[in-house]
């Protein structure tokens, strides 16, 4: 799918790369023993180091290192056996040390790749430039007092993975797909909860534009504060259009940091030149170079779960699902788990159909995520079993499904209690057919004269007469015998 911005002087193309900060799932912070639990009272999870007290020293939390390696492996990336922590120096009220311990020219993870699943079922590879570990800053709160700002250091020192993509993204949709895929991967891996609302996954987008056909990279702007997939797509779209306008008006795009305003869907310049940061990076002398052995990497690799791409391939190869269906089902780990429970020992295509069409539809309608689905995977599986065993028809199954959405009930019990069991008694079906034929003699005659299409109409009428309980296959067979036999 191409994405062209039409300007007055010609067509423009979007060039975009993303920098995503993922908060590492770990009990303690990157360099201190303080807890990382979300939602605690301000300044209750602060170690002496996190508060920047004199003489305090960082000690690396190896769990965070393992998580970074795990994520790197999930991104099919190069793991660097030796990486270096550097200090990024700048003053900020919520940065107690006066520098952020980060990684600069020697990150723990090098080049990798993410495969995007696009709407049309196609895929696209986006390169990963690097992943590095760094500590988060605290939080400034400016709305608590009219003259003072308050600082919460609970978040200060929490481990982040900054994942930087190559400028391979060409459409806002791809940016959205990238974020969703990255989130799926880190959640499958258990290295980040991917929660953009709570800020445990944050995104900066780098946007530039160029005339269609050009291959050089133009000056980019970095848009910060984009904290949902939708906002990222909006911000990119707006920023690309703004830049096209700047060029078309004869201006030049300046390299700058811009802030996304979700209320207006626009971006605005954030820093004036006199505040341009010179971070004065240098290797942190308090820390030794970070070593990761091949044995450690191998052990982590051996413990990796099945990732979305592998799962998708398996669903296609072993279960015969279409690329689109497989892609949809693996996009969220919870969905995949749910689906696998439903499909286990059943017809996977039928299971996929029920999950994608019926369940997703219902969840969408009642506004609940799959983790809060009123229908358990076991119950949905049972429903499919009831169809297969000819206990109920597909039509009745849809009614039972709706009841399950409302009551969370067991389909077997619903069918029994409500007397929805399918009629397979030939005599009863015969009687119903005879009634329908009797009531519609002209139509019956038409069928006898060869108008096959009307047979379906008769089936429908019989089903209606039996409140859907008749076995539709049997109805069809008997009708054929009576009218065309």
């Amino acid at each position, binding site marked *: 799918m191409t994405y062209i911005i039409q300007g007055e002087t010609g067509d423009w193309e979007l060039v975009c790369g993303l920098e995503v900060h993922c908060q590492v799932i770990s009990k303690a912070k990157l360099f201190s023993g303080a807890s990382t639990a979300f939602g605690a009272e301000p300044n209750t999870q602060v170690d*002496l180091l996190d508060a920047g*007290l*004199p003489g305090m020293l960082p000690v690396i939390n190896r769990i965070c290192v393992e998580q970074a390696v795990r994520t790197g492996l999930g991104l099919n990336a190069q793991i660097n056996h030796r990486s270096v922590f550097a*200090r990024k120096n700048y003053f900020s009220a919520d940065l107690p040390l006066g520098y952020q311990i980060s990684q600069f020219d020697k990150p723990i993870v090098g080049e990798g790749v993410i495969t995007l699943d696009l709407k049309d079922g196609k895929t696209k590879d986006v390169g990963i430039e690097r992943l590095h570990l760094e500590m988060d800053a605290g939080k400034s709160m400016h709305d608590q007092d009219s003259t003072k700002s308050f600082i919460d250091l609970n978040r200060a020192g929490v481990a982040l993975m900054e994942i930087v993509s190559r400028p391979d993204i060409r459409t806002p949709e791809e940016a959205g797909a990238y974020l969703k895929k990255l989130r799926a991967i880190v959640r499958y891996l258990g290295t980040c909860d991917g929660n953009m609302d709570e800020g445990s996954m944050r995104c900066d987008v780098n946007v530039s534009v160029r005339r269609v056909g050009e291959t050089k990279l133009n000056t980019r702007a970095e848009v910060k504060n984009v904290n949902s997939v939708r906002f990222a797509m909006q911000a990119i779209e707006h920023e690309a259009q703004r830049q096209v306008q700047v060029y078309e008006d004869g201006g030049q795009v300046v390299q700058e940091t811009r802030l996304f305003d979700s209320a207006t869907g626009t971006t605005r310049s954030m820093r004036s030149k006199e505040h341009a940061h010179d971070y004065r990076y240098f290797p942190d002398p308090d820390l030794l170079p970070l070593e990761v052995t091949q044995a450690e990497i191998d052990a982590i690799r051996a413990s990796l779960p099945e990732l979305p791409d592998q799962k998708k391939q398996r669903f296609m190869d072993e279960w015969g699902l279409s690329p689109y269906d497989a892609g949809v089902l693996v996009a969220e780990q919870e969905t995949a788990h749910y689906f696998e429970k439903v499909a286990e020992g059943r017809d996977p295509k039928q299971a996929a159909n029920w999950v994608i069409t019926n369940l997703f539809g219902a969840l969408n309608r009642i506004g609940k995520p799959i983790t809060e689905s009123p229908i358990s995977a076991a119950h949905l599986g049972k429903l499919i079993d009831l169809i297969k065993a000819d206990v109920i028809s597909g039509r009745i199954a849809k009614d039972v499904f709706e009841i399950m959405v409302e009551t969370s009930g067991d389909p077997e019990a619903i069918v029994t209690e409500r007397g929805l069991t399918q009629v397979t008694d030939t005599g009863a079906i015969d009687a119903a057919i005879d009634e329908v034929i009797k009531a519609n003699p002209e139509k019956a005659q038409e069928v006898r004269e060869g108008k096959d299409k009307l047979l379906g109409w008769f089936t429908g009428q019989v089903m209606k007469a039996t409140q859907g309980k008749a076995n539709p296959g049997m109805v069809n067979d008997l009708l054929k015998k009576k009218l065309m036999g």
Partner: protein
Amino acid sequence: MTKLTDLSLAEARDGLAQKKFSAVELTSAYVAAMARHADLNAYITPTPELALECAKASDARRAKGVAGAMEGIPIGMKDLFCTEGVRSTAASRILENFVPPYESTVSANLRDAGAVMLGKTNLDEFAMGSANVTSYFGNVANPWTRNSDDKTLVPGGSSGGSAAAVAARLCLAATGTDTGGSIRQPAAFCGIVGLKPTYGRCSRWGIVAFASSLDQAGPMTRTVRDAAIMLGAMAGNDPKDSTSAPIPVPDFEKALTGNIKGLKVGVPKEYRPQGLSAEIAKTWDQGLAWLKDAGAEPVEISLPHTDYALATYYIVAPAEASSNLARYDGVRYGLRVDGEGGLDDLYCRTRAAGFGKEVQRRILIGTYVLSAGYYDAYYLKAQRVRALIAEDFRKAFETVDVILTPTAPTPAFAVGENEDDPITMYLNDVFTVPTSLAGLPGMSVPVGLSADGLPLGLQLIGKPFDEETVLKVGGVLESSAAFTARPSRGEG
């Protein structure tokens, strides 16, 4: 009986063990001496009550048969070590009223070994200086004076308070920290022993950081044996300091065998620059002669990158300092000077008022050398030269066991001298800085007096984590020199 304050640490330890006197008696003698010689300004914060309490507790432990390696020994603590409940200033206005809720690893090790802290000793602000004249709490007076005049002399720096206190018998021993010579140079200026261990031997946790890749704590004592005892109590791997070495601490005192037969003593030709005072050169030759007499073999060596050491040091150390001192911003603790201009104004006012001139100078130098466009030319190049300097030593130690050099190019100078130009002051560290850059152990031993009656020291440099050889050779130098002169001020 000898005055209690005249005993060495080893003698006091043995006297305490033999119950000749109690820790309270010993501590009281020092507390009285501190009060009598407060004019030396060796202490920023004396803690006499606390000291007597600790001494009492020490006596109680001993009565129960429990005694650590430093049991009942009254010591001075450089005010760069954070001490729980006792204000820790780094001799800076910005930390004037800072009382840490934690104890540094080294001071905790000493406390756990039974040592009694007499107070926090003066230093150059944030350990930046070679004369102890940059302290916010005023300069320290060297207890020694020249024959030729009665000017107040500097004790050296930055551990000037510790050096003066040990020399004037205002404590039995003291902790120092050394970044480019801050233990060894003041030890030489005050006629005491000062040992900077190998980088990584002592934990830096809880020591106010100056330059993290160079800072190292060490003992300042009156004898080599005392340094061995005290280092043993200070050192050890600390999981809280990633740069502390995971290697066991030997019994340093056992290294003092006096036997240096066949040992090769390196004499670097680059340490005899033109203009080296004849007096210093003579002392050096004398030291070498003593070691030769004791059976060691002098070997001329070359450390070709020595000339670049000082420039390298004055890039690396300020660079790290500029970052390490960023946390003193007036936001969470320490001095805060509010202004009208918001946060940036708060930073500017606090740091302008809180830091002295030398500290500000080094922050500016450090910020400059790390800046975009200058990093490669300064910081990166300095790191490369640093590696070459370390390589010089590594090669030299393929042929020699220890290196002997002067500690400082001059004896102590008067307050006010060498202050016109910061570079002159920086030259004081010319013989000590290369060792620091290479992370090697170095010890200054007092070996004689200048013609003007001031103590002179020689420096012994060892292989990484070979403090034992340094101490062993230092012991021989000490007994050959038989340095018994006493300063004119302090406890007589």
